[in-house]
């Protein structure tokens, strides 16, 4: 439905009642101007004039009823007025009921809310992201964006999901539309061409719809970052053919992380620590063992896992309902819930078990059965539905794979701090010892709770003070951003992880690095440190103190004290 159509629907539906209303008024007024009246002596007088007739019909029709004004009526007038009373009450009731019926009409309500949504999006005056699909994943993304003080616009097919979102206590209001995000006009209404639109997340559970959204974005806003959830490889290939879009396959992502955890535990922990929910403590779990693994369920997730585990050189036993071709591993047919099947797969000799079916209760049963047979086994559980989180936590598996959470974390990281995924990839190349050393150093400086990661770009929007200093030909070292504005010698609880300049990344840039306009820096630290850093980047006086060690003061102060600003 076209977003501006509510008004036209009202006009169209009100045609019949309004015409009837006009007709009844016309006949009533006409009659009163034709029927003669009577005076106190019983002599006939002239009928009402048009003004009097209109006045009389107006108040009678609205059932106000002042009596017979301007003078008592004749019998003929009274008969006519009786007819007027019934006729007008009926048409008014009809008109009002038509309006009421219209307001409870579904199509009309959708048109109304679509119009409201479009206006709210048009009036957004700060950067925002479009989130298509507000299921478990989309909901998590919206909540996280809200926590990060970033605005979002939501589209979902299901009104009930949007209603649930409304109940969540968002700090800033999130315009939401119940419509098909794969439709061009709905994407336009959501602000695809809005100048503040900073990215699109296609997170619906329909790969085809996500593909359509990506196609729209690529054609209409080629520069806009697009992040897609995708669960089938064939669709992923088609999406990658578009070019700059990014796809997230939760199964492949998790399988890669599991492999990372097996061959480089320190890197995996660094990854976990940097991408976790800020403020939470990471549980100290054991590292996934090398050796014999059992995978239950050989679907999309199972395939990704087996491919990664094979690459790590693990011995694999597979349990699946249907017999499949087994290339280099044991295959047992069954669901995995039955102890015999687990035993046949060698559960008592296995080091790890992955319950990877798409049914949560089956996964839980498999894990419980396996624990009984082998209490030491390392358990990885796939959790499909968010509502089962407590059940899964109660079982205390070593790792939980929740697709919604993985997609939400990845999507947010790539959108709001694109340097972080690149940093983590570069870290993998540095090796496990490097990661271990870095993480121990950072944990000493920042504490063990999951820190905040953020990206600062040296541009006119954020770092106004730094940009103007550089424009004046002065050098600003990176150290100015990592020290306390109140006491220059003390470090803030933050560290620079990476610096991107002209497409090349520097890992762990040194404090003496001189900043230049266009630099992107990835920081890790506390929320307080981030707030201080924003102040430094924006405030000339604070920056002056941190770079030179002297207070600059205002223009008037400088004139009064005849002091020239220090030159470096």
């Amino acid at each position, binding site marked *: 439905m076209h977003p501006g*159509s509510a008004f*036209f*629907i009202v*006009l*169209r*539906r*009100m*045609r019949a009642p*309004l*015409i009837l209303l*006009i*007709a009844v*008024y*016309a006949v009533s*007024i*006409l009659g009163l*101007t034709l029927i003669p009246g009577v005076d106190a002596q019983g002599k006939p007088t002239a009928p009402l*004039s*048009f*003004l*009097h007739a209109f006045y009389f019909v107006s108040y009678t029709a609205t059932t106000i009823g002042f009596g017979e004004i301007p003078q008592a009526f004749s019998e003929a007038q009274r008969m006519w007025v009786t007819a007027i009373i019934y006729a007008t009450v009926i048409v008014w009731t009809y008109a009002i009921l038509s309006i009421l019926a219209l307001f409870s009409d579904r199509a009309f309500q959708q048109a109304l809310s679509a119009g409201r949504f479009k206006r709210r999006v048009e009036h957004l005056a700060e950067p925002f992201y479009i989130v298509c699909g507000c299921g478990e994943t989309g909901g998590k993304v919206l909540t996280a964006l809200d926590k990060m003080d970033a605005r979002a616009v939501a589209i979902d097919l299901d009104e009930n999901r949007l209603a649930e979102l409304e109940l969540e206590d968002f700090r800033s209001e999130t315009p939401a539309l119940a419509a098909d995000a794969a439709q061009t006009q709905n994407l336009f209404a959501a602000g695809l061409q809005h100048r503040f639109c900073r990215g699109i997340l296609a997170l619906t559970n329909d790969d085809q719809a996500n593909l359509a959204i990506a196609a729209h974005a690529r054609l209409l806003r080629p520069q806009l970052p697009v992040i897609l959830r995708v669960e089938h490889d064939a669709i992923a290939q088609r999406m990658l053919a578009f070019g700059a879009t990014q796809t997230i396959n939760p199964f492949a992502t998790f399988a890669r992380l599991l492999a990372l955890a097996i061959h480089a535990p320190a890197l995996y922990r660094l990854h976990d620590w940097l991408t976790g929910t800020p403020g939470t403590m990471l549980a100290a779990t054991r590292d996934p063992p090398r050796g014999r693994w059992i995978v239950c369920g050989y679907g999309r997730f199972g395939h990704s896992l087996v491919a990664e585990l094979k690459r790590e050189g693990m011995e694999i036993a597979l349990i699946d309902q249907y017999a499949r071709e087994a290339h280099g591993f044991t295959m047992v047919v069954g669901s995995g819930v039955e102890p015999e099947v687990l035993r046949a797969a060698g559960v008592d000799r296995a080091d790890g078990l992955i319950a990877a079916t798409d049914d949560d209760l089956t996964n839980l049963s498999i894990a419980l059965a396996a624990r009984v047979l082998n209490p030491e086994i390392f358990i990885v559980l796939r959790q499909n539905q968010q509502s089962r989180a407590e059940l899964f936590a109660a079982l205390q598996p070593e790792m939980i794979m929740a697709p919604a959470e993985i997609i939400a974390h990845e999507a947010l990281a790539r959108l709001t701090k694109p340097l972080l995924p690149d940093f983590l990839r570069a870290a993998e190349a540095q090796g496990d010892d490097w990661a271990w050393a870095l993480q121990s150093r950072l944990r000493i400086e920042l504490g063990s709770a999951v820190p905040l990661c953020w990206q600062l770009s040296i541009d006119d929007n954020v770092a106004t003070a730094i940009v103007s200093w550089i424009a004046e030909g002065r050098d600003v070292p990176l150290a100015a951003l990592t020290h306390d504005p109140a006491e220059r010698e003390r470090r803030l609880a933050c560290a620079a992880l990476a610096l991107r300049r002209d497409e090349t990344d520097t890992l762990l840039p040194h404090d003496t690095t001189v900043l230049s306009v266009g630099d992107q820096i990835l920081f890790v630290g506390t929320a307080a440190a981030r707030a201080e850093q924003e102040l430094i980047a924006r405030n000339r006086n604070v920056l002056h103190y941190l770079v030179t060690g002297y207070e600059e003061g205002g223009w008037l102060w400088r004139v009064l004290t005849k002091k020239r600003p220090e030159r470096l």
Partner: protein
Amino acid sequence: MNFEKVVFGFFIVLAATLNFGFFIGDIDRPELHHIYELFAAIIVNLIATVLKFGDRTQIGAIHLATSLVADLQLIAAASVWAIAVHVTGEGMSPMITASVVSLSGGALLANIVSLAILVAETVMMRR
């Protein structure tokens, strides 16, 4: 034949003819401009306006605009008449008659535009 079009055309033409009927005659002679004709013109004009509601084409929008202009002019004429006869008690003097009739003349012009659009729309239609 489309019955909706018949009704639509009927009301537009009737609005213009009634308006014309009231307007025609020496401008300052009240006996040549019957007040019932003005009343009928207002009612038919209002109905013609409502009939144009909800048409989202460009032509529909112009139709609605001309109709609204005609309504405005005719209601202004009726208000002048009501004030002269009932409020100031001046009655239908030549001056008042002239202003009532000239206001209805403005409405007539708007109605003629409406007619022209109706004719143009009909001619453009190839079916």
